[in-house]
């Protein structure tokens, strides 16, 4: 896994490089948008971490250029500013995630992992979350290496949670995910499926209840 870090502050860049290297990623660092353009053309990456406040061409312009050029590379935007406008424009311009400085290194690593996994799940048929292994095309799932039998609705709920691993998924969204089979399904039914999933999956990947909001599948490895 290879990550491009575009950050002009040497101290921050060095810390990110060390943190990600320790987490097992290969890291390339450049200090400006111009040099990032060159690196992106000549090399292939799994993720780019881009600081907004770059000297010269800023990070949002770089992001915009990448998206215009058709790049689907996952991008995590770093910023020291907190204005709403920054956040909105970053996400509008095609950023996949957004982190405000100062950040905690474990948080950064977790976000990188999630972004890379999500982009892989779009192209690959398999997904691994903690002790959980999903074959998306075949609707097959293994927990700690043991195949698990799931009903179609249980599978739909698990797939929806797995594709949004680490994020809170609203109950309504899960209802939509299984609405293909059942038109009149209530939010209460979701609780039943989640409860069954918890029993079947054991501790391989915990499904957290977020009271009043929905559920979150956690990556036990983080």
């Amino acid at each position, binding site marked *: 896994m290879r990550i491009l870090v575009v950050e002009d502050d040497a101290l*921050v860049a*060095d810390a990110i490089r060390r*943190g990600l290297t320790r987490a097992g990623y290969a890291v390339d660092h450049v200090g400006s948008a111009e040099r990032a353009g060159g690196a992106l053309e000549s090399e292939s990456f799994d993720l780019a971490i881009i600081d907004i406040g770059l000297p010269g061409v800023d990070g949002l312009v770089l992001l915009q250029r990448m998206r215009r050029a058709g790049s689907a590379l996952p991008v995590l935007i770093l910023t*020291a500013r*907190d204005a709403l406008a920054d*956040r909105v424009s970053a996400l509008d311009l095609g950023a996949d995630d957004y982190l405000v400085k*100062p950040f905690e290194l474990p948080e950064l690593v977790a976000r990188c992992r999630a972004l890379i996994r999500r982009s892989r799940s779009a192209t690959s048929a398999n997904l691994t979350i903690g002790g959980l292994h999903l074959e998306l095309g075949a609707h097959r799932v293994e927990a700690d290496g043991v195949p698990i039998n799931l009903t179609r609705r249980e599978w739909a709920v698990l797939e929806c949670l797995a594709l949004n691993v680490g994020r*809170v998924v*609203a109950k309504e969204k899960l209802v939509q995910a299984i609405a293909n089979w059942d038109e009149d399904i209530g939010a209460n039914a979701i609780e039943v499926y989640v409860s069954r999933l918890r029993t079947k999956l054991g501790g391989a990947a915990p499904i957290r209840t977020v009271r009043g*909001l929905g559920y979150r599948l956690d990556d036990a490895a983080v």
Partner: protein
Amino acid sequence: MTRPSEPAHSVRRRLLLLLLAPLMLLLGTGVFVDYVTGARPIHDAYDRALREDALAVAAHLRDEDGNGRIDADLPPQAVAVLRADSTDSIYYAVRAADGTLVSGDADLPARPLRGANPTFDDVEYRGHAIRLATYATRVGAAEVTVAVAETTRKRTLATTRILTSIVLTDLAQLVGTLVLVWVGVRYGVRPLRALGEQIAARSARDLAPLDEAPVPTEIRPLVRVLNELFDTVRAAARSQQQFLASAAHQLRTPLAGIIAQLELLARDPAAGAARERLLALHDGTRRLAHTANQLLALARAEPTATTHEDFHETELATLVAEVVSQNLDRSLAAGIDLGAETEPVRVIGSAWLLRELLANLVDNALAYTPRDGSVTVRCGRCGRGAFVEVEDDGPGIAPEQRERVRERFYRVPESPGNGCGLGLAIVDDIARAHAATFTLGDGARARGTRARVEFQRAV
């Protein structure tokens, strides 16, 4: 909106007061002039009638025997005609040159001729004011004086009638003028009132220029100055925002580097004996970063740093979901059940500031709620307004502390945690920036704290 009560310095009132004194003076003069010019001819007409009477009496005088002794040949019918008057009493006296009475009322006062013949006098007779005409004439060889008088009741009646009508018409004119002024000024200041209402209807943050076109030329300079003021305030807000953005960047970037490096160092096996100190340094630097963030948030919440353009329709339920999601890991680590109870509701506000408000309330609740406690974030409608609230079942805030905790840098004595005492001050400021009320109360079953922010109006 209720209309404000008439201000003390109302243009109308001033104008009316200014006009009242001169108008009263004009009224007085008018009444006087009209009375004089109206009463004189009447007076003259009655005098002429009196003169006719005197001449008529004189016509009946004869010097029959030519010896200078006058015979007053006044038949009873003539006297009756002379005295016949429905209103006034008529008196007459004919006297010879030596003053002896020839005929008539002996006690009628005699007055000498003064120039005009007849001469008119106002005298008192038998307790009444009378008008007396004294006419000298010659009958044969004898000189006689004929005096005819009448009481003044007719004259008084006529002049009173004239005076009344004059005063009434002039008063009507005065009142009419004042009413015209009252109504006219009201109509005249209508553009000013409209301008005032236009300004009052805007949000205090709306700094868009006022339209000059519908404003009368007299008020245009005022509008122009207001617009210049709006421009200045807007520019100041923008430059303050830019300054804060730069300050945030300059503060946070090195802090991010230091915090991440300290964390790496502390985890490095080579750290050895220095690990404890490195962890302490890491923790201290994180606190510093937290304080820097809080100070920046406080500055951003300043009314001068936000403008109308920062305020949009904002869905509170989305903000609650975001803030709860962001704090989930922290609540799991602290063993606190963090949840939400939301109802979709929108308010006009700055999403950034409102997120900051919620984040601070949740941060506080998580910091002071013990393990196995619970924190619930709610939003919804209340009446025409909306609310967000964060309720915990922690130790709560003593009622006497509830005001003080909103002060900047104030911390409840001996409270756990290591906050900088800015969280609730930020909440207070942001609530105020949204014209919302921020209250601290007891949680459910009189335990813990319920921090509630109520917005006046939901969209």
